[in-house]
């Protein structure tokens, strides 16, 4: 049995396959546990991408200015 690649499954789930291809893929997914599992892995990929976007946002709004004072003359408060 020929399995679908992740890229092909991405095309399927984003509605970017032709009508015939979509029908074939849909039928195949019902019968093939390997491809069904691969399809589920795409959901895990989405979760990781969400986390990555969040991580990038996490650092985006930080103060831009860098310290300029001399380290040796900085007034210690403790």
């Amino acid at each position, binding site marked *: 049995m020929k399995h679908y690649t992740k*890229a092909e499954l991405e095309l399927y789930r984003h509605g970017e396959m032709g009508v015939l291809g979509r029908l074939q893929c849909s039928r195949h997914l019902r019968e093939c546990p390997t491809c069904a599992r691969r399809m589920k892995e795409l959901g895990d990929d989405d979760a990781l991408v969400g986390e990555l976007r969040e991580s990038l946002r996490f650092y985006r709004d930080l103060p831009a200015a860098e310290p300029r004072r001399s380290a040796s003359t900085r007034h210690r408060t403790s």
Partner: protein
Amino acid sequence: MAYTTRKSLLRKVREGDEIGWREFYCTYRPLILRRGMDFKLRPQELDDLLQRVMEEFFQKELLAVKFDIDNIPPELTFRYDNGRGRFRDFLRRVVTNHACKILRARRDQRPLDGDSPLPDPEAGEDARWEQEWRCHLLNEALRELRNQVAPVTFQAFEMSSLKEHGARETAAFLGISPAAVYTARSRCLARLRKIVKELEVRP
């Protein structure tokens, strides 16, 4: 095909390599500032926190010479002693301790200016720190990923997944097929998971 040219700082920590001042500063500045913001430090206090933490890691050398903090000589380095435990825990303690000292100093100088209790550096905020560390780790992994895959692969992944331009738009921009964009995404995520796993091993 490997494009690796630069070892990440976390790998250096783990392997006991020398770490340069500038590299440490650029890598950990965001994490230190984020931690300071958790304690509601003011901009000047964040600046102070950053310098205190840098001094903690590079103290001996910094105290021995007088220079502007932006002109630290590249030979100024430190080596993390893995006997101190996990680097992330050590860093958390250092940053939290200094944040508390700054808060204490603020309270001592202006006792009537908001009387909120000081956080305990050893307790409480761990879940938040773990989340912040995870963000840091993912940012580091992304940086490393960029060096490990072909530029067009990274660009396809970055544009379609991180910047949310969509596969079609990315494909048209890069002159490749949408399937190739998805392949790039899949390849990058698989590699990224591997990098994250490697970085998580010890530090």
